[in-house]
């Protein structure tokens, strides 16, 4: 009984302290950080690093959404866009799908279902690019952790250059230059891995092609 009373008394004090902490760390703290994030230079990042093209929000430079070319449904080689990595929740092809919920496939490397999926993607990409399936790099056939990875490896970008140049009526060298422009290496030479930003690259391709 004495212990129970003690516990109840402590719980009462606990509730009062919890309410104070809720105000301090659950209201004041996040709103203060939000307030600071309104400062010039931070505001754009806080609201999702939106890329504006033609006066409209065309995407976030941090978020990869696989673009759809309606012509590709008839003939995959007539697709004019650079493609992102596959999304785990995509029901067909590589994506796109609902981008409101993020996540990966959670399938292990020994999973038979994943093997089927990898081979299907590999064949699909090889047909689209007109290359041997052996040339398709690993990141092109594996789903990212977030399903929103904006980057592809420089190898996967290089694989897509010929088709994108052809379908947009651009010289291959120009497309290759644009890929280089939208590639970032390792920060300080050691952090992370090199990648090509598909979101900003496609916008640049559209600008260059003028349509």
């Amino acid at each position, binding site marked *: 009984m004495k212990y129970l009373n003690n516990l109840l008394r402590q719980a009462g004090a606990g509730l*009062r302290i919890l309410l104070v902490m809720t105000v301090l760390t659950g209201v004041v703290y996040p709103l203060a950080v939000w307030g600071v994030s309104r400062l010039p230079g931070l505001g754009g990042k806080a609201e999702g690093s939106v890329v504006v093209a033609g006066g409209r929000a065309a995407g976030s430079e941090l978020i990869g959404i696989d673009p759809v070319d309606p012509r590709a449904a008839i003939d995959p080689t007539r697709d004019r866009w650079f493609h992102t990595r596959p999304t785990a929740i995509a029901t067909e092809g590589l994506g796109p799908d609902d981008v409101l919920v993020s996540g990966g496939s959670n399938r292990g490397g020994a999973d038979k279902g994943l093997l089927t999926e990898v081979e299907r993607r590999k064949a699909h990409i090889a047909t689209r690019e007109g290359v041997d399936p052996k040339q398709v790099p690993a990141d092109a056939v594996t789903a990212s952790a977030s399903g929103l990875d904006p*980057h592809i490896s420089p190898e996967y970008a290089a694989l897509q250059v010929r088709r994108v140049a052809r379908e947009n009526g651009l010289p291959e060298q120009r497309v290759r230059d644009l890929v280089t422009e939208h590639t970032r290496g390792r920060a300080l030479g050691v952090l992370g891995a090199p990648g090509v930003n598909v979101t900003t690259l496609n916008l640049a391709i559209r600008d260059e092609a003028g349509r």
Partner: protein
Amino acid sequence: MSPFVAGLGQVGLLVMALAACYRPLGDHMARVYGAEGHWRLERGIYRLARVNPDSEQRWTTYAAAVLGFSFVSIVLLYLMQRLQPLLPLGFGRGAVEPGMAFNTAVSFVTNTNWQSYAGEEVLGHTVQMAGLTVQNFVSAAVGMAVAVALVRGFVRARTDRLGNFWVDLTRGTVRILLPIAAIAAILLVALGTVMSLARGIQVVGVDGITRTIALAPTASQEAIKELGTNGGGIFNANSAHPFENPNAWSNLFENFLLLLVPVALTRTFGQMVGDRKQGYVLLSVMGLLWTVMLAASWWAETHPNGVASLAAGAAMEGKEVRFGIPASVLWEVSTTGTSTGAVNSMHDSFTGLGGGVALLNMLLGEVAPGGVGAGLYGILVLAVIAVFLAGLMVGRTPEYLGKKLGRREVTAAAIAMLAMPTVVLLGTGLALLLPSTPDFMTNTGSHGLAEVLYAYGSAGNNNGSAFAGMTVTSDFFQATLGVAMLLGRFLPILAVLALAGSLAQQRRVPATAGTLPTGSPLFVGMLTGTVVLVAALTFLPALALGPIAEAL
């Protein structure tokens, strides 16, 4: 530069950053918990809460305060989720269903941050900020308070008082976590992490299709999620989501944050017991385990053996291009070695050995370097066991840090140590007995078994990372994993506080020629051996059927 060399450079930068903060932060924390006076803000908090900050508590009262505080925290967080439609900034998200609300409330209060829901789908901004962010702070502060109470047990003599829980809780929050988190949150925004009160952004892509991308008040929660070794992401993909962790810089910074406090606490410990070497010994054990785990996982992920990974050409399933493999394994080992459980790649998609490292890291009891506070008291419990084992071998009453380890102390330490394996193995066994369990697994065979073991290992250790392929939204999993989190958190805490109370009552015994020198490299080896031995004896059969079978 080859990915391997670059990866080493990355590890080097991380270690240097931690080394630079080790002394200042460790000493700061020792001062905070030993300070006489109160800040004006703290006095205001004590007055509002009507607690007397200058009265010290016995271990029983300290424990009652921990339990009482955690109980009301669970109730409040449960109610907030159930009443979500009435709260602002919910954007039409409904009430969280009871099983999920219970599981989530327990999860965040126990510093586990296991998530059976998809953040952007289920929870509105108010529950995220006023509910989850709050628990991100205070559950971390609770862990630190318990660790400090245990250290006081070693430091003090002939007293039944361990300090005041409300003071330790408040100081941990106000003087340690809040200032660092505030700076870190703003740095994260500068690096690209979002901090928005909007529902999302509508974009019209190059293909002319309109889509909505979810936004959230992320940076404020991201900072404390890592700093407090919590790990619950605002988005479903956690720190793999580009809005939580936009680039290699933010990735390094977040990885640094999640290791910062557990590592520096070993300095705090050395400072408080007046013998810094004792702290370096604990740090060496943690560093040793962390390095071995990192090497094993790194090798495994760069040498995949699964059919799907071989067909793809590399183990990139569930990993992000901007991080690559080295930064993914570095994070994996750090997040499971602490009790964080945040992920920047999907552990379920790791190779058998790589994923096994994450699992083993948790099953070692999360002491490499462990959660904030939980890591320190976890490894101190194992140190007590190691000293006791050594004492058995030479037939002397063991002593550690000037205190004799008698029957009461060793019993308390054994309970603290065995609570987690009991919870994990019973939970896993129970789940596997159910005929319906295989339906909830994404993977089959040994990897499926690993998914279940991982779930209970994560819950029982308050880690919160997952082999997320398993569907855990059934009432059975919501309830049993919730109970596993509660027992895995509070049984060890009670035992640790009992241990502290018993140690504090003793007088100090001077070290003699027969005392085991616990500040020496020899003891690093003994303690590491104890950590590995305990885990191996408990979990080897289960591991053999799961990740070991898959790795072979």
